[in-house]
């Protein structure tokens, strides 16, 4: 036992660092009513219509981001794997570019290029949402790229495509009914990371849409105005993050190293 003293100490220290804030936040969230523990803060959170509305908005944006990323990346990567292997390092490099552009800088660039004449995209709701979607796609690009790439590496793509072609399938059929089902699990991995990124993303939404529309800016605003509700929301969003990470582990990857996410 004594031989394992140091490992146990380091692990305990890590666990303490991890759990103390969570424990304290949970206790804090129950103290909305003086003197007793209650779930009043949670009731108030759910009673606020903007909580549901902003969460729904961000969920929709997340699903849209995942869909558009797949639409953009799966055909590109398939073609690269099949015909243009030499171009792969270049595309790989492009997919890493989001890491070197902090989200504050990215949104600053967007506002400069797209929010002014001649484009003035942000003058219409659709334009603003479209730009936000593009930004989310950029933030999640490295993760989606990596998971789709890993998926395609793991299957015998050439044989699958040739077999489908000799059975008379066109490219649309090949993508929808052969390639996609085979890389589904790998793609799901990137999708959950993307979901977590978009739900928690503050910077782009804050500067494109203002304070209320998306989930994270709404949270930040609540945090300035209230005391106990933010703690309740934190507990809820921790449970959500936990759920996502558990799903990721079930999918077979336990290293989800996020650095472009909602920091």
């Amino acid at each position, binding site marked *: 036992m004594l031989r394992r003293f140091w490992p146990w100490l380091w692990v305990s220290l890590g666990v303490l660092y991890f759990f103390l804030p969570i424990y304290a936040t949970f206790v804090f969230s129950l103290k909305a009513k003086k003197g007793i523990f209650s779930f009043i803060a949670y009731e108030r959170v759910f009673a606020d219509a903007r909580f549901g509305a902003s969460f729904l908005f961000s969920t929709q944006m997340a699903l849209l981001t995942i869909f558009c990323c797949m639409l953009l990346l799966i055909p590109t990567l398939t073609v690269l794997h099949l015909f243009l292997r030499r171009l792969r390092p270049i595309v790989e490099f492009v997919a*890493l*570019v989001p890491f070197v*552009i902090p*989200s504050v800088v990215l949104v*600053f660039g967007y506002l400069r290029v797209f929010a002014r004449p001649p484009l003035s995209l942000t003058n219409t709701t659709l334009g603003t949402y479209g730009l936000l979607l593009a930004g989310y796609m950029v933030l999640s690009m490295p993760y989606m790229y990596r998971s789709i790439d890993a998926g395609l590496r793991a299957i015998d793509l050439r044989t699958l495509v040739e077999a489908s072609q000799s059975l008379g399938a066109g490219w649309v059929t090949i993508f929808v009914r052969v390639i996609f089902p085979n890389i589904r699990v790998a793609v799901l991995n990137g999708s959950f990371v993307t979901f977590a990124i978009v739900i928690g*993303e503050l910077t782009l939404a804050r500067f494109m849409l203002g304070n209320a529309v998306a989930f994270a800016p709404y949270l930040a605003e609540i945090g300035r105005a209230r005391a106990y509700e933010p703690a309740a929301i934190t507990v809820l969003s921790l449970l959500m*993050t936990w759920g996502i990470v558990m799903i990721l582990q079930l999918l077979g990857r336990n*290293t989800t190293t996020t650095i472009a996410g*909602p*920091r």
Partner: protein
Amino acid sequence: MANGAAQTWWRQIEWRRVGVSLTVGPFLLFAVLFMILPAGSLLIESFRNAQGQWTLANFADMNDPMIIEAYAMSLRISFTTAIIGAILGLLVAYAITVGGLPHGIRTAILTFSGVASNFAGVPLAFAFVATLGRTGIITALLAQLGINLYKNGFNLYSYAGLVLVYVYFQFPLMVLVMTPALDGLRREWREASAILGANTAQYWWHVALPILTPAILAGMVLLFGNAFGAFATAYALTGGTFTMVTNVIAQEMSGDVLHNEALAYALATGMIVIMTITIGTYTLLQRRAERWLRA
């Protein structure tokens, strides 16, 4: 082999080339429009003044106490939290790999690390307010024990507080990065050292550490970049008033402080340059570190 065959194959049939450009084209177009163009536009504008003439004045203007403080603070926070996070993360990773703890502990720690490294931004800031804020649970607990944190110079909404909060998502990332590297240490190496007469300390100093160094450095660099671009956590904690590069750019965007757009472009360019160096270094180190894993 198959590669060469494929190339002649699509060269012979023209429409295949069309198909290829129809798939790769949109991706490259997207990358140019939404990554290269916005970043490039900031880069170019940082070399022009308000009248549109080419100049280096914007970078000279960065020699301003507030700007220097912002950069110094961002670098300091990133550096400090990278070092602390790396040390703590390394120790935990060591404990769950070579340390010989039960397998269940390892799985649990890796799950915690996955959660904590992704649990950042606004909710993380709230969690620390509830813990160590002025009315936080731990603050109150310590006050009962006679220790008044805030009277003893601690302030969650300052440098020390931010370091504490950042380390929460930094050290688990280090655990995730270092665990595979430590797993890569082979038992044969330890046995070989023992046969040659090395004791445990000599094994770690002369064999394990040199092998792990690239991975450790790569982890630190990654942590540095992770903190340097961060915005949401500090924004939620301090309302964006704390002087950091990300906050100064944000204030410029909302038109609060500088009213000097050209200077903000220069600030943004500086960030991109620092991040490019960071990620470049990380990639090189990571490649070096993986050599031992692949063998």
